[in-house]
C-alpha cells in the first residue's frame, strides 16, 4: 500500500510526467473530437480559392487544392495515435514474447533468439520497411502498424531479456518453480509484474518510435495509400511546393504535432523513470 502511495506521490509532483501527459491528453482529445469539429472532410476541395493562410473559416488554412488543413491535421493526428498505439503495442508485445522467452528459458533458445535479435537489430529497420512497403502496393494504416510493429521489437526484446535474466535468478522465481508453476505462468505472474514499470517505459518508447517511423514512411511516399496522416501531410506539402510558395501553415502543424507528441512521450518516460528509480529522484 505504502509503496503505491509513494509512486503516486512522486507522480503527482513530477513535472516531466505531468507536462508530458498533459500534452498527450490535449492531442489525444484533439484527435478524438477534432474530426467532429472539422467542417470539411480531409480530402474535400473545400476552398475554391485554393491555398489560403489560416482564417476563421479555415482554422489552419487550406492546402494548394483548397483542402482544409485543420481537418487533415486532426484526422492525421488520429492516424498518428493509432500507429503509435498499435505499432508501438505490437512492437512491445513481440519484444515481450521474445525477451521473456529468451530471458527465462535461457540456454540454446536464448542463444538462438539472441542471435536473431542481434541480426534484426543490425539490419536497418527503415531499409527493411521500405522493402516491405514496396511489396504491399496498396497499403492501409493497419498494415503500416503491422509492419512497424514487426520490425521495431529487437531493442525491446533485448531490454526485456536482460531484465528477465536478472529477475530469473531471484529466489522467488525458484520458489515458484518449486510450487510446480509452469514457465508461462511464472513469467506472467512473477516476472512480468515486477517489470511493469519497465514495460510501461518500453511501450512509451515504442509508441514514440512507431510514430516517428510512420512519419518517415509516409513522408517518402510509402505510407498508407488510402488515408491521411501527419507524415503524408508533410509529403504533400513538400510535393506541392509549400516551401517556395511560403505555405508554412501546411507543413508546420503536422511536424509540430509529431514533435510535441513524441517529445511529450519521452518526457513522460523520463518522468516515470524518475518515479520508478529512486536514484534519479534526487537530481
Amino acid at each position, binding site marked *: 500500500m505504502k*509503496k503505491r502511495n509513494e509512486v503516486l506521490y512522486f507522480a503527482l509532483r513530477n513535472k516531466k510526467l505531468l507536462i508530458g501527459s498533459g500534452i498527450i491528453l490535449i492531442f489525444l482529445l484533439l484527435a478524438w473530437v477534432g474530426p467532429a469539429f472539422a467542417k470539411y472532410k480531409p480530402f474535400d476541395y473545400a476552398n475554391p480559392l485554393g491555398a489560403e493562410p489560416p482564417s476563421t473559416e479555415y482554422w489552419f488554412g487550406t492546402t494548394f487544392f483548397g483542402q482544409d488543413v485543420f481537418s487533415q491535421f486532426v484526422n492525421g493526428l488520429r492516424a498518428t495515435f493509432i500507429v503509435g498505439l498499435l505499432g508501438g503495442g505490437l512492437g512491445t508485445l513481440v519484444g515481450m514474447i521474445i525477451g521473456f522467452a529468451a530471458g527465462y528459458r535461457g540456454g540454446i533458445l536464448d542463444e538462438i533468439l539472441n542471435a536473431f535479435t542481434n541480426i534484426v537489430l543490425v539490419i536497418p529497420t527503415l531499409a527493411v520497411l521500405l522493402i516491405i512497403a514496396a511489396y504491399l502496393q496498396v497499403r492501409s494504416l493497419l498494415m503500416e502498424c503491422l509492419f512497424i510493429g514487426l520490425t521495431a521489437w529487437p531493442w525491446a526484446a533485448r531490454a526485456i531479456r536482460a531484465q528477465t535474466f536478472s529477475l530469473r535468478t531471484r529466489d*522467488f522465481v525458484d520458489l515458484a518453480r*518449486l510450487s*510446480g508453476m509452469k514457465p508461462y505462468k511464472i513469467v506472467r*505472474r*512473477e516476472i512480468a509484474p*515486477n517489470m*511493469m514499470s519497465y514495460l510501461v517505459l518500453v511501450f512509451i518508447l515504442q509508441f514514440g518510435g512507431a510514430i516517428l517511423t510512420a512519419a518517415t514512411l509516409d513522408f517518402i511516399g510509402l505510407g498508407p495509400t488510402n488515408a491521411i496522416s501527419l507524415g503524408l501531410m508533410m509529403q504533400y506539402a513538400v510535393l506541392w511546393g509549400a516551401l517556395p510558395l511560403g505555405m508554412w501553415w501546411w507543413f508546420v502543424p503536422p511536424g509540430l504535432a509529431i514533435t510535441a507528441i513524441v517529445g511529450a512521450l519521452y518526457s513522460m518516460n523520463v518522468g516515470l523513470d524518475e518515479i520508478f528509480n529512486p536514484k534519479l529522484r534526487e537530481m
Partner: protein
Amino acid sequence: MLRLDNVSKVYRIGAFGGKALYAVNNVSFEVHKGEVVSLIGESGSGKSTIGKMILRLLDVTEGKITYNGEDISTFKGETLKNYYRQVQGVFQDPFSSYNPIFKADRIFEILREEFFPNIPIPEWQHRVKNALVSVGLNPAHVLNKYPYQLSGGQLQCFLIARALLLDIQFLVADEIISMLDASTRIDVLNLLADLKSRGLSILFITHDLSLAYYISERAVILYKGYVVERGAVEKIFHTPLHPYTRMLMDSIPRLDRKWEKGTTLLERKIEEFRGGCPYYERCPVAEKICAIYRPSLTEVDTDHFVACVHYEPSTNLLGAPAYTEQRTSQSGLG
C-alpha cells in the same frame, strides 16, 4: 532416501562452449530419513549447485540423483509436482525469496492454487495459520504484510511454514541463516532441528562448520566442486583430516579461543585449476605429486572419508611432478 551418485554439473564456456567448467565434480552422498546432512564449503564450492540440482532447478550433467530409488530427472508434470510435495527448499536471501511487489503471504496462495485447488479458502487459511504458529509466528502479526515490513527471520520462517503445508519429507536449506541477524539466527536453526525430530530429512548447506556441528549428523566438505571430506559430523569436527577442513576449523571465529596467527593461505592471483588436487595451490602440506594427482575419497575410519594423498595408502609421494618450479614461485606469502 535421497542419494547422489557421481553427480557432476558442467557449464560450457568459451565461444562455442568448447571449455568445460565443473561446478560440481563427481559428488556422491546419501541423506537418510530423519537425518540432517550438512554440505559445507566456501562460495564457489558448488554447494548451492547441488541443492539446486536436488530441487530440479538445475539439470544434472553427469551422474544420477535418486529419491526413494527413483531418478528425479525422469519426473515430469504430475510426478514432478508430487516430488515437490515432498521435497522443498528454503534459500539464503529471505528478501529475494519474495516477490517484492506482492504481499508475503502470497506464497501460500500460490501453493493452494498449484497443489490444493480443491481446498476451500477458509479451510486453507486455517491450515496456513496453524503452520505459522508451528514455526513460532503469530499469524495476526505477520499476515497481510509486504516482505519489507517483515524481518529476515520472519520471512525464513514463513518459507519453512510454506514447506510444512505440503506433505514434506525432505528440505534443502541453503544458507538459510547466513543473512539473518545474530539475534534470530539461532531461532531459525532450532526450528530446523525441531523439524528433524518430526522425521524430516534436511540437507543443510552452510559455510560454517560450527553450525553444521550444531545441527547435523553427517557432513560433506566441498572444495571447488569436489568432496574432500565426508562422514559423521563428530569425527570431522573433532578430527578434521583434510588440510582444507582443518583450515576451515581454524578460521572459525570463536568466542572462547583466539585465532592462531597466519595459518591461512590466500590466493595471490586468480589461477585456473589445472588438474591435480583442487586444494593444491593453497595447501600447506602439499606434496609434489599433488600438482598432478587428484586423490580419491578414501575411508580412513568408519563413516569418515577423506580425499588427500596423505591418507591414501598406495600413493608414492616421491614421484616428481613437473610443476615444482611453478609452485615455489607462486605460493610465497606474507
